[in-house]
């Protein structure tokens, strides 16, 4: 496997920021000290054990597919599994097989086989929108690879996406590559602006409509807002610094 790594040298880690109270749920009185540290939502189990976030789980998934040369040339999308949500939820207390929304905290390539005589670009649709990639960094380095198919586009153009643009490049398989890797990181996300508090407080909200739940316009200039609405909780927010 080979990669064109565009990542800049890593800057030293920023000093840990002062903690602050949760915005959404005032679990403590206004005068109480800090409630939670602002660690990254991608932190591993050691850090998450200090919060009430769920722990980080791990699954190994094998993808084995046969494709015609035409399909490879045009590009083919292959599901990781038809029951991936059930595979990920198995054995985890309090999580049902219907839970399909996760935060991926890392992907490594364990082994690979390819009998294709040319490079194969591998990408995945990790995100549903471009906004989700705002501020998101890949410590492994986002992969920019030459357009894989001359039919697809300019052959000399390097891109960080595959397919229709909703896929992000993960790795590029060498011709006839057969290898067993050791901790070959291909996706190691970090985020400078979002932290575990955001995930914990707002992780169950997906749409703007959910934020408007229960809010009623009573005059041209006034809303009635339920006391338990996230809007009230944001206004009630207290930060210590």
């Amino acid at each position, binding site marked *: 496997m080979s990669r064109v790594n565009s990542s800049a040298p890593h800057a030293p880690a920023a000093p840990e920021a002062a903690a602050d109270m949760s915005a959404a749920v005032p679990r403590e009185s206004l005068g109480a000290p800090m409630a939670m540290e*602002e660690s990254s939502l991608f932190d591993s189990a050691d850090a998450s054990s200090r919060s009430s976030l*769920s722990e980080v789980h791990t699954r*190994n998934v*094998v993808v084995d*597919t*046969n*494709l*015609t040369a*035409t399909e*490879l*040339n045009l*590009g*083919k*999308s292959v*599901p*990781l599994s038809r029951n991936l949500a059930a595979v990920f939820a198995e054995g985890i207390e309090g999580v049902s097989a219907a839970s*399909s*929304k*996760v*935060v*991926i*905290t*890392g*992907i*490594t390539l*364990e082994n690979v086989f390819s009998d294709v005589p040319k*490079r194969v670009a591998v990408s*995945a*649709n*990790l*995100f*549903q929108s471009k*906004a*989700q990639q705002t501020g998101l960094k890949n410590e492994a380095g986002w992969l920019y690879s030459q357009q894989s198919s001359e039919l697809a586009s300019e052959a000399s153009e390097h891109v960080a996406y*595959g*397919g229709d643009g909703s896929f992000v490049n*993960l790795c590029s*398989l060498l011709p006839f590559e057969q290898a067993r890797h050791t901790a070959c990181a291909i996706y190691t*996300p970090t*985020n400078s602006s*979002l932290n575990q508090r*955001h995930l914990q407080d*707002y*992780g*169950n909200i997906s749409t*703007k409509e959910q934020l408007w739940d229960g809010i*009623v316009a009573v005059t041209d200039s*006034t*809303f*009635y*807002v339920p*006391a338990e609405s996230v809007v*009230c909780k*944001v*206004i*009630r*927010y207290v*930060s*210590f*610094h």
Partner: protein
Amino acid sequence: MQGDQVRVFPLILSCVFPRARTDPFSYNTPHSKNWDRFGFSPQSEEKVEGSFYRIDKPIVQSVVNQLYDNVIARLPFTSLNNLKLHLQSNVEPSNSATHNCSMQLKINYRYPQN
């Protein structure tokens, strides 16, 4: 309740991104409180109809829009129901020649809440 429209945006930003405060007053007080700056304290405000607060529209709209745009829309969730790999190669097109690609991926993940 009278909302100070000029200060709404930095106030909400300071809530959503506590480290990115833009209101200079944030640094002059030991405790910064959105409700204090809004001139609106849910705890002291009288509820309407038993469980509602009366809040100016621009404040509510700003809270909702900024919270969604700056946090909720950016949470990097992955949908497992639709997760796919896309494979592409510049091989000579042929419907008779088939190729095998196999890989094992180790995926670390967490659910948003317990």
